[in-house]
Structure formats: C-alpha cells, structure tokens
C-alpha cells in the first residue's frame, strides 16, 4: 500500500513539470516550436532525427508527450514512432503529429495510430491550440501511467491472494491427508499435499537422522520431468545422504522457512544445477522440528518466476507447526505401540512357557502316569487344571487382541466348518459351569450347511457367547442356543433370561476391556475382551454380531456367518 502511494506521487509530482520531446530536425519552424512550448511548467528536449530521438528517449524518464514535426525535411515518421515505442519508458507516451495540412495529417494518423500517434495539429500552427493539446496529452499520459500502475498492483494482489488461497487449500489438504493417512510417513504426505495444493512442480521430503539430511521421498507433478533431480533424490538415503542443495541446508540450520530464486543459489552445486536445468526457478524449504529437534525439511520447487509472497510463507510456516504437532503425536504413538508389542511378546512367551509346564505335567498326572489318586486328590487336580486352562485362555485372548491390533488383521486357518459340530462342542464345554448353577442349556440345531472359516476361532466365539450366557444367568435359569439358516447366512443365536445389559452401556460392549456395570456389581469374572474378540473374529469371516438386551430380563446375541454355498453361487453369475 505504501509503495503504491509512493509510486503514484512520484509520477504526479513530476507531472508539474511536463517533459516534452520535440522531434523536428532542423527546420524554420523548429525554433518557433521550441519557444512556444518552453515554459516554467514544461521541460522541452529537442532532437533532430529518429535516431537521435532513440538516444534521447533512452535517457529520458517517462516523457509525457512526444511531438513529431513531420514538416521537417527528411523526417521519417515511422522510424521516430518505432523509436518511441521501443523504449520501455516512453512505451505509453502519446505522440502528437505536426503536419502541413489537415487531410495529410489524418492520413498519417490513420497509418500511425497503431504505433501510438494520438492526435494531429495542422499548419499553420495555432500556438494556443498546440499548447492546449500538449497539456491535454501530458495529462492523458499521466493518467495512463497511473492506471497501468494500479492495474499492475491489482494483478499482483490477485496473484498474491491466489497464492494465499492455494496455501490455505494446501494447508487443508495437508490436514485431511494427516487425518486420513493413519499409516505412512507424515512428512512425505505433507510434501506431496503441499506441492500439489500450491500447484508447485516438485515436493521433496528430506529426513534428518544422525545429523544427516537424506531424501525419503520426492513427488513430481505428473506432467513435469526432471530426470537428474529425481536421480539425486533416489540416490539419497541414510548413510548416503547426498546433497539437498543450499536452500534445504539453510532452512535446516536456521530453523525457519527459507525461500530463494534458484538463480541466487550456488550454481556449481549439482542439486541447484539440476533444478535450474529442469526449469525450476524458485525454491522454498520448510524445516520441521519436533521438541526443538529437527526431524526433516520439506522442500518445494516451482517453475514460476514470481517469488512466493510473505503471506504464503507464513501460512506454510503454520503448516510446518501443524506437521510437527502430528509428527510428535505419531512418534508418541509409535513408541507406545512398540512398548505394547514388546509387552505382548513378553506376555505371550514368558507366560505361555510356564503354562506349558503346568498344563503338561498336570495332564501327565491326570493320565495316571505316576499312579492313581484318590477321589479328593483327583478333584483338586481337576480344579488346578481348570484354572490353568482359564489362565491360558486369558493369555491367548490378550495375545489375539494384540496381534489383531498390531497387524490389523486376524489370521485364519480357513476350511469348511460344520457349525452344528461347533455348537455341540461349545454346549459340551459349557455344561460343567451350567450344571454348577442349575442352568439348563437347550440347543436347537437345524442343518444349515458349512461356512468357510477357522474352526478353532469360531469355536472360541460360540464358547464365549455360551459361557457369557451362563455367567449372566440366574441360578436355575435357562440358556438357549439356536443354529438356523437365514437369507444365505448361518445364524447362531444365544439367548439367556438373565441380568441383561443396561441400554446406556450396550453400545460400548464391543470395546476392549469394557464390562457392564452388572458384571462388576455381581463380580462376574472376566476382563472384557470376549465380545471385542468375538466381533473381530465374526468380521474377519465376513460375518456380523448383533445384540438385543433388556436389563433384568435377558440378552440375545446373534452371530451371522455367510454360508459357503452362497459364496460360491454369488461368485459365478
């Protein structure tokens, strides 16, 4: 804004002394003309020919009016006008033609208007008319210049707001990419989203490890080619960092965004050379620091000659801060994830090994390998065995959840599974606990065909649903298991008439370690993993689990698994 005012006032100020250039050769009228036009408010320069006009104009800052006296012998109007137009300063200067007669003048005007001849004065020259016209044209010239300046400024502002808009869009796309891209390298995502969002041709992600800067990923606009630059990127890796060019180094050491025209960087630097060769003229480097440790630099390069404006750079600085925030969160997550994985590896190995001995030796004892036991001893051993198996299942569940969360997948040993056998085994397994509380288990099994699944995992699911139903039933209650077919699914329903789950708690029941208030109040054993595992296993089989429960009157869990036959008939139209 300040600059605009200054430029305008400079031009307005100099208009108080109008600069007039008279091109008139050596003629009788020449001196008269000079005398007429010269005044305290006008500075008049006189030149003899087109050639001389060129030299004078080159030295003259923005002449207001050029008067060409075509009456002078040997005057080449075309040459003069071309000279006037060729000079940057007088490109928009109005030209007044002095001619012998009005008709000839109009002819000239028609022919020369393309070159900027705007008016004509015919001999005999009326001094007042001439002065008035020169004043008018000088005024016109000033206005034209002011307009040009304003147009330029407007264009600049447009361009800047466009750049800024793009920066904001880029910022948004970065945020979306970060929110979206749970996996992958945060900085790479950002480098690409920024370059793409801003419409720059190259986005490079430089990582900093052990004080080495190396390229972890680079993105090029699909239609843009920079083979040497790409080679430099691909050759750079930890241990062989390569040279990211002066700008990235500069940002790495200053810790603030740096930008510069490539031409201002060291031309002997192979990286800068490659960028210049590819037609890239501007670079911007955004350092990313997490807890004041530099973790990377995002480099953006573009072909446009216009430098990025301050607002864009500020916005990008904000992006860098945002990215650092995400990178910090990601690092904490990674560390937590690593700790968790180590913990589960430890649990699985260190707990399963002693369990192997406990269960193994117990089994030997119960098989009678060391002789017979009396009934009491056998019962005690049975208790130890049952609890050791419970402990084992618990460890197994924890490992299962850790694996499913760590790898995101549940690994299944797929085969054709007869669900009626799975149900029968589960009923069998739940019988002991049910009998202890005088709970009757009723199984209604229809022939449904087979599902494609992991028999051990599906057994785990039905076991879990049944043992839950028993645990949450009143003594003397009733549990029903139904296996039936419904719309090409095999459906297992486990129905109890027990305590139910309060409505407000139902939605959270599939979350890990979530237990209903009823389970805690009644001190029903469990750690709240069963339903989340059940859901994971059901979904890994392409199936689903649903719950219907009314507090104090019971729950129904419905497991639906796609039948094998349906999968085949759908596969072949």
């Amino acid at each position: 804004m300040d600059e605009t005012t200054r430029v305008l006032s400079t031009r307005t100020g100099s208009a108080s002394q109008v600069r007039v250039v008279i091109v008139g050769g050596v003629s009788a009228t020449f001196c008269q003309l000079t005398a007429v036009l010269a005044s305290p408010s006008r500075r008049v320069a006189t030149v003899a020919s087109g050639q001389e006009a060129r030299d004078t104009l080159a030295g003259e800052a923005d002449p207001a009016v050029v008067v060409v006296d075509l009456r002078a012998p040997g005057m080449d109007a075309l040459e003069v006008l071309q000279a006037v137009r060729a000079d940057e300063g007088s490109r928009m200067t109005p030209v007044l033609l002095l001619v012998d007669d009005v008709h000839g003048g109009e002819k000239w005007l028609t022919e020369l208007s393309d070159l900027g001849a705007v008016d004509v004065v015919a001999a005999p020259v009326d001094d007042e008319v001439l002065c008035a016209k020169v004043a008018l044209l000088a005024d016109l010239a000033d206005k034209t210049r002011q307009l040009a300046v304003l147009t330029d400024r407007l264009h600049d502002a447009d361009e800047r707001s466009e750049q800024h808009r793009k920066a904001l869009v880029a910022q948004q796309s970065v945020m979306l990419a970060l929110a979206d891209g749970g996996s992958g390298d945060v900085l790479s995502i950002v480098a690409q989203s920024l370059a793409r969002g801003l419409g720059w041709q190259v986005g490079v992600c430089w990582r900093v490890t052990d004080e080495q800067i190396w390229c972890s990923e680079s993105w090029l606009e699909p239609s843009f080619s920079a083979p040497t630059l790409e080679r430099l990127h691909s050759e750079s890796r930890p241990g062989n960092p390569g040279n990211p060019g002066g700008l990235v180094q500069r940002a790495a050491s200053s810790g603030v965004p740096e930008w510069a025209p490539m031409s201002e960087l060291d031309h002997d630097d192979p990286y800068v050379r490659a960028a210049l060769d590819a037609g890239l003229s501007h670079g911007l480097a955004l350092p990313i620091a997490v807890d004041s440790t530099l973790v990377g630099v995002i480099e953006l390069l573009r072909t446009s000659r216009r430098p990025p404006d301050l607002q864009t750079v500020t916005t990008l600085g904000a992006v860098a801060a945002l990215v650092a925030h995400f990178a910090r969160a990601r690092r904490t997550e990674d560390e937590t994830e690593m700790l968790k994985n180590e913990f589960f590896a430890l649990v699985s190995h260190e707990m399963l090994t002693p369990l192997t001995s406990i269960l193994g030796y117990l089994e030997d004892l119960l098989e009678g390998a060391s002789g017979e036991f009396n009934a009491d001893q056998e019962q005690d051993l049975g208790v130890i065995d049952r609890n050791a198996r419970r402990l084992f299942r618990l460890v197994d569940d924890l490992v299962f959840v850790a694996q499913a969360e760590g790898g995101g997948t549940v690994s299944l040993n797929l085969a054709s599974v007869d669900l009626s056998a799975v149900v029968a085994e589960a009923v069998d397994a739940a019988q002991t606990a049910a009998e202890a509380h005088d709970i009757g288990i009723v199984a209604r099994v229809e022939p449904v065909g087979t599902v494609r699944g992991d028999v051990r995992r599906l057994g785990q699911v039905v076991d879990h649903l049944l043992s839950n139903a028993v645990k949450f039933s009143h003594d003397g209650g009733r549990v029903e298991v139904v296996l039936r077919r419904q719309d090409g699914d095999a459906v297992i329903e486990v129905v109890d008439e027990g305590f139910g789950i309060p409505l407000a708690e139902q939605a959270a029941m599939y979350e890990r370690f979530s237990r209903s208030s009823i389970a805690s109040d009644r001190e029903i054993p469990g750690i709240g993993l069963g339903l989340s595992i059940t859901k994971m296993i059901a979904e890994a089989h392409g199936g689903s689990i649903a719950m219907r429960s009314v507090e104090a009157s019971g729950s129904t869990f419905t497991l639906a698994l796609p039948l094998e036959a349906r999968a085949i008939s759908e596969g072949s139209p």
Partner: protein
Amino acid sequence: MDSRVTTVLVADDDDDVLALVVRRLERDGYEVITARDGAEALRLARENLPDLAVLDVMMPHLTGYEVTRHLRQETATERIPVILLTARVQEEDVKRGFSVGADDYIKKPFSPQELRSRVQAVLGRR
C-alpha cells in the same frame, strides 16, 4: 523303518518344558538328546545326526529359526527333519519357520497326543 532306535534332539532353554518333552518322547520309545540353547543344539545335531530335531524358537545364542537354517545349509544335516516349538503363533512366525526349512511347528502349550502325532507324522514322511 529299520530296527535302529530313533534318535530325537530336543532343545529348549526352559528345563521343565525340556524335561516334559523328553519324558513323553522316551515314553514313546525314542532315544533323546537334549540341548539348552541354540548353539548347543547345533553342535549336538552335527555330532549325532539325529533322526529328528524338536527346537524351541526363543532360545539364547541361536534361535530355533537360526539353528534350522544352519542345519539346512550343511550337507550332513540338511535332511534332518525339524519341528519348532513356539509360544507365539502369529502367521508370520509360522511362515518364517517354514521359510527357513522347518517341517512342522507345535504351539505351546501342547498335549502329549499332539506332540506324539506330529513327531510320528514328520518321521513317517521321511
């Protein structure tokens, strides 16, 4: 199978698990050699050329995977069948076991029947 006694090398760093496996195999009539870490297992395998090696995966010095890989690389031992004992059975653990040349794996905890049938199956395959 000839009349010669079948020799099984068992390696586990947990003494109790080791004794359990040994007891069960001896009960089934196998002659058992024991090792308490991977390096010892490899040495005993080279010296005795057993008919089968049952190796724990998580052992000091050399893991069960590494012992298996070494056995497969040497002419004298390359044909010794290997069963891995493992507490963690993630898919990648199993894949890794097979990729280094193991013949089968048994997940801890295991029943006597499971050990017996896997050992018989692997020996019968040769």
